[in-house]
C-alpha cells in the first residue's frame, strides 16, 4: 500500500476558497443571547453545572462531561443563564436539543480558570491529557470527537506519531487555511504540547499543495520554535484527502484497519484548529469558547472567516457578512460534499461549525432526474475507500445483506465522491446512509440469534438435568428400605 494508491480514489474538485480568503479573520460581533447545546460533541451529552437565573462569567465551566465519551462546556460570555431547554441545533435538520441559554451582559467578566498553566513540560503526559480535557476541546475538523478521550485511547508506550491535519479538502471551507496563515505559531505551540502529552516521536503537519501562504507561515513558525520533531508534508489537493483515514494513507503510506483506530497503528491525528485551541488553553487559559467559522457562498454579500464565540446565532454571522443576497437559496453547515442541510438560520454556532455555506443556485445546482445505473464505474474510480458503489446500489434493491456486507457497505465513509461523478444522478450516499443501520441490525440480529440459541440449549440441558436429578431423588425416597440396593 503506497500513498499513490490512494490517489486512485478521490476527486479534484473546483476550489471555492478564494472568495472567503481575501480578508483576514475578523471577530464576529457579539449577540444578545448565546445558545449552548449540551450535545455538540460526539459521545454523550454534557451534564449542566448551572441552573436558570445563575450568573456566569466568561470562560466559566457550565457543563461537565458525562462518564464515558463527553466534553466540558464553558460560557462564551458573562451574563445570566436564562433557560436550560430544548433549542434548535445545527444537526439532524435543526432538530431541538437540550441547550443552556445565556443572556450576554456585554461585560465579558472573566472567570479565572485556576488550572491554566504556562509551561506544559512541567506536568506529566497523563496530567497534560487531563488538563487538555478540562478546556472542553473537541476535534475541530467537523467530527467534534472529544480530544481528551482521543488522547487517552492513544497513549502508547513506544510513542505514537502525531499528525496534524491541515488538509482542508472540502472546496468551500477555508477556516483552517486562514488559521494556518495567521496563527501558525498557535498551531506549532499546540503541536508541541500534544507531542508532550502523547510522548509522541514526531509531528507531521499535513497541508494541501494549493495553499502556499499557509505553508510559508507554518514553516516560519516551525523555524521560530526551533523544534526539529515537527515537519510539514504537502499532500495533493484531492477530495477527501483530509479525511483522517485517507490522510494517514497519503502521509504515512499505511492504512488504518477497518475495525480499528489510527492509534492501533501508532498514529494520532488531530486537526490544526484543535492544536491551536490547545495552545490557547495552555498558554492563555482560554477554554474552547470560540472558533473560526467560514461564511461563504453566493448567498451572502461578503464571504469571509469569522472568529465566532460558541453559541453565536448563524443569523448574526450572516448579518456580519453583509446579509443574504437575493439569490440565497440553501443553507448548509460544513462543506458542499458532506455538510448538513439546514432549514433556517436561527441556530447557534457549535464546536463543529467550521463553515456556513449560504448557497445560491449558482453554487449548488439541483440534481437532474435520476436514471438507472449504467454501471459506468466512475463511482468506483472515485471511491477513496476502494468500494464498488455501483454494486452496492445494485444489491440495495431488494436489500441483500450478505452481498452488501461482502461489498463493504459499512466501510463507506459517506464522502459523496460517488454521487458527484454519477452520470445517472443517483443519490448514492443518501441510500447508503439509510441502508447502513439496516445492515448493522441484520448482522447484529445474526449474532444475537446465535447467542439466544446457545442460551436456549443450555437452559434446556440444565432443566433436563434438574429433572433427572429430581426423579432420581424421588425414586430413592419411594424405594422400600429393606430392598437391597443394587
Amino acid at each position, binding site marked *: 500500500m503506497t500513498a499513490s494508491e490512494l490517489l486512485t480514489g478521490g476527486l479534484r474538485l473546483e476550489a471555492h476558497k478564494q472568495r472567503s480568503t481575501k480578508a483576514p479573520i475578523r471577530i464576529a460581533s457579539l449577540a444578545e443571547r448565546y445558545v449552548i447545546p449540551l450535545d455538540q460533541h460526539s459521545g454523550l451529552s454534557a451534564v449542566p453545572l448551572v441552573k436558570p437565573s445563575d450568573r456566569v462569567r466568561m470562560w466559566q465551566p457550565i457543563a461537565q462531561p458525562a462518564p464515558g465519551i463527553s466534553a466540558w462546556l464553558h460560557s462564551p460570555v458573562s451574563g445570566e443563564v436564562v433557560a436550560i431547554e430544548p433549542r434548535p441545533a445545527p444537526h439532524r435538520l435543526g432538530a431541538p436539543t437540550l441547550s443552556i441559554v445565556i443572556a450576554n451582559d456585554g461585560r465579558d467578566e472573566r472567570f479565572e480558570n485556576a488550572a491554566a498553566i504556562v509551561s506544559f513540560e512541567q506536568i506529566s503526559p497523563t496530567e497534560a491529557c487531563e488538563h487538555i480535557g478540562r478546556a472542553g476541546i473537541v476535534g475541530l475538523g467537523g467530527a467534534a470527537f472529544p480530544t481528551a478521550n482521543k488522547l487517552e485511547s492513544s497513549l502508547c508506550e513506544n510513542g505514537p506519531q502525531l499528525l496534524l491535519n491541515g488538509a482542508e479538502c472540502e472546496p468551500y471551507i477555508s477556516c483552517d487555511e486562514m488559521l494556518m496563515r495567521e496563527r501558525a505559531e498557535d498551531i506549532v505551540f499546540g503541536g508541541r504540547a500534544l507531542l508532550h502529552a502523547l510522548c509522541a516521536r514526531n509531528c507531521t503537519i499535513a497541508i494541501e499543495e494549493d495553499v502556499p501562504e499557509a505553508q510559508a507561515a507554518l514553516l516560519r513558525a516551525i523555524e521560530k520554535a526551533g523544534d526539529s520533531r515537527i515537519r510539514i508534508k504537502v499532500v495533493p489537493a484531492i477530495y477527501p484527502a483530509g479525511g483522517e483515514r485517507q490522510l494517514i494513507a497519503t502521509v504515512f503510506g499505511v492504512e488504518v484497519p477497518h475495525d480499528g483506530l489510527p492509534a492501533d497503528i501508532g498514529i494520532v491525528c488531530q486537526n490544526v484548529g484543535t492544536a491551536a485551541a490547545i495552545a490557547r488553553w495552555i498558554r492563555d487559559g482560554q477554554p474552547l469558547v470560540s472558533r473560526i467559522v467560514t461564511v461563504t457562498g453566493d448567498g451572502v454579500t461578503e464571504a469571509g472567516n469569522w472568529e465566532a464565540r460558541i453559541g453565536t446565532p448563524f443569523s448574526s454571522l450572516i448579518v456580519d457578512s453583509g446579509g443574504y443576497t437575493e439569490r440565497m437559496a440553501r443553507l448548509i453547515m460544513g462543506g458542499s460534499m458532506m455538510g448538513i442541510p439546514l432549514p433556517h438560520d436561527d441556530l447557534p454556532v457549535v464546536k463543529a461549525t467550521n463553515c456556513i455555506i449560504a*448557497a445560491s443556485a449558482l453554487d449548488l*445546482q439541483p440534481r437532474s432526474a435520476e436514471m*438507472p445505473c449504467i454501471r459506468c464505474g466512475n463511482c468506483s474510480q472515485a471511491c477513496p475507500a476502494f468500494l464498488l458503489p455501483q454494486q452496492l446500489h445494485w444489491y440495495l434493491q431488494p436489500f441483500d445483506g450478505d452481498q452488501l456486507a461482502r461489498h463493504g457497505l459499512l466501510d463507506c465513509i459517506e464522502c459523496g465522491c460517488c454521487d458527484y461523478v454519477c452520470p445517472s444522478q443517483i443519490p448514492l450516499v443518501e441510500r447508503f446512509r439509510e441502508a447502513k443501520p439496516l445492515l448493522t441490525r441484520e448482522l447484529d440480529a445474526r449474532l444475537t440469534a446465535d447467542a439466544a440459541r446457545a442460551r436456549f440449549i443450555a437452559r434446556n440441558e440444565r432443566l433436563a438435568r434438574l429433572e433427572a436429578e429430581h426423579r432420581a431423588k424421588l425414586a430413592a425416597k419411594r424405594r422400600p428400605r429393606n430392598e437391597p440396593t443394587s
Partner: protein
Amino acid sequence: MTFPTTPAPHVVAHDSVGRVMRIVIYALLPTVLLHVAFFGVGLLVQITLGVATALVSEALALRLRRKPVEPFLKDGSAIVTAMLLALCLPPLAPWWLVVSGTAFAILLAKHLYGGLGANPFNPAMVGYAVLLVSFPVQLLQWLPPAGMDMEQVKLSIGETVQTILTGSLPSRLTWDAVTSPTPLEALRTNLKMGMTMAEAQAAPIFGTLGGRGWEWINLATLAGGLALLGLRIIRWHIPVAMLSAIVISASLMYMVDPGTYAGPIFHLTSGASLLGAFFIATDPISAATSDRGRLIYGAGIGVLTYVIRTWGGYPDGVAFAVLLMNLSVPLIDRYTIPRIYGHAR
C-alpha cells in the same frame, strides 16, 4: 426564512447518461463516414432503419412496462445499440434484417431484463448473433470496398435504397456480381482451399495491413476509440486487455506456423476487433465491474475472438466472444471484488 434541505453531497458534476451516449455516437461517426466512403450509402440507410426501429421498440417496451417514455428515449442508449448493430450488417442487407435484429435486441435482450442498466447481455450483439445464426447467407453478402481494381459494380443511392427495401438487386445485376467476402472470410476460404498464407493474402481484397478499405475504417474506429478514452467515457482496461489478448494469441500462432495463421496486425485491422474493443466490449452495463474484472473480461473476449475466427465456422468471433464473456460477468464480478480500504488483502 426557511430553506429547502436536500441530503449531502450538495454539488454534483452535471454529467448525464445522455451525454455519455451522445459522445459514443459522435465517436462512431468517423467509422461511419469511412464505411460510407468505401461501401456506399447502404450503411446510412441501415442506421436510419435501425435507429427508427430502436426508438419505436424502446417506446413500446417502456409503455408496456409503464415507465416514463421520454427520459429513456432521450438517453440515446437505444440509438447506440442500433448503430452498432447496423455497423455489423452488410450495407445492402434487406430491411427486415436490421429491423428484426434491432427489435430483438431492444425488446428481448434489453427490456425483458429490466431495461437500461439491467441487461446482462450486450443487446446489439444478441441481435447480431440471432441474425447471424438465422440468416447466415444474407449476412455474408458484403460488398467489395471501393478502389479495388476488380470489376466495379456501382450502385446509385436510389438503387441502394431500393435494394435494401425490396431485398432484390436492380435487374442489371446479380448478387454474385455485387458481393464479395470480408477479408476474414476470404482468408478462411482461401486457406481451406489449400493456399499458403502468402497466396491467400495476395487476393486484391487484402490491403497493406488487413483488408482493403477495412484497414482505414478500423483506423477511424481506433481514432474514435481513443477519443472516448481521452474523454474518459471508457477506461483502458477492456480495450487494452482485449487487443493484447488478440495480439498475443495471433503472434503465438503466427510464430508456430506463419504459413497457416495470419499475423497480429491483420487480426487487429480486420473484422470487428477495434470496434469490439472500443465500442462493444466497453458497454459498461454488460461488462465486468472492477478493474481487475474488466481485464479478465477483455482478455477473455480477445482470446475467444481469436479462437472462433481461426478455427470456428463463423467469419468473425467478436459477437460470440462478447456474449460468452457477458455470460461470465456475474461470476467474474463475484471473484474480483477489490480490496477495501483497511481490510487485509
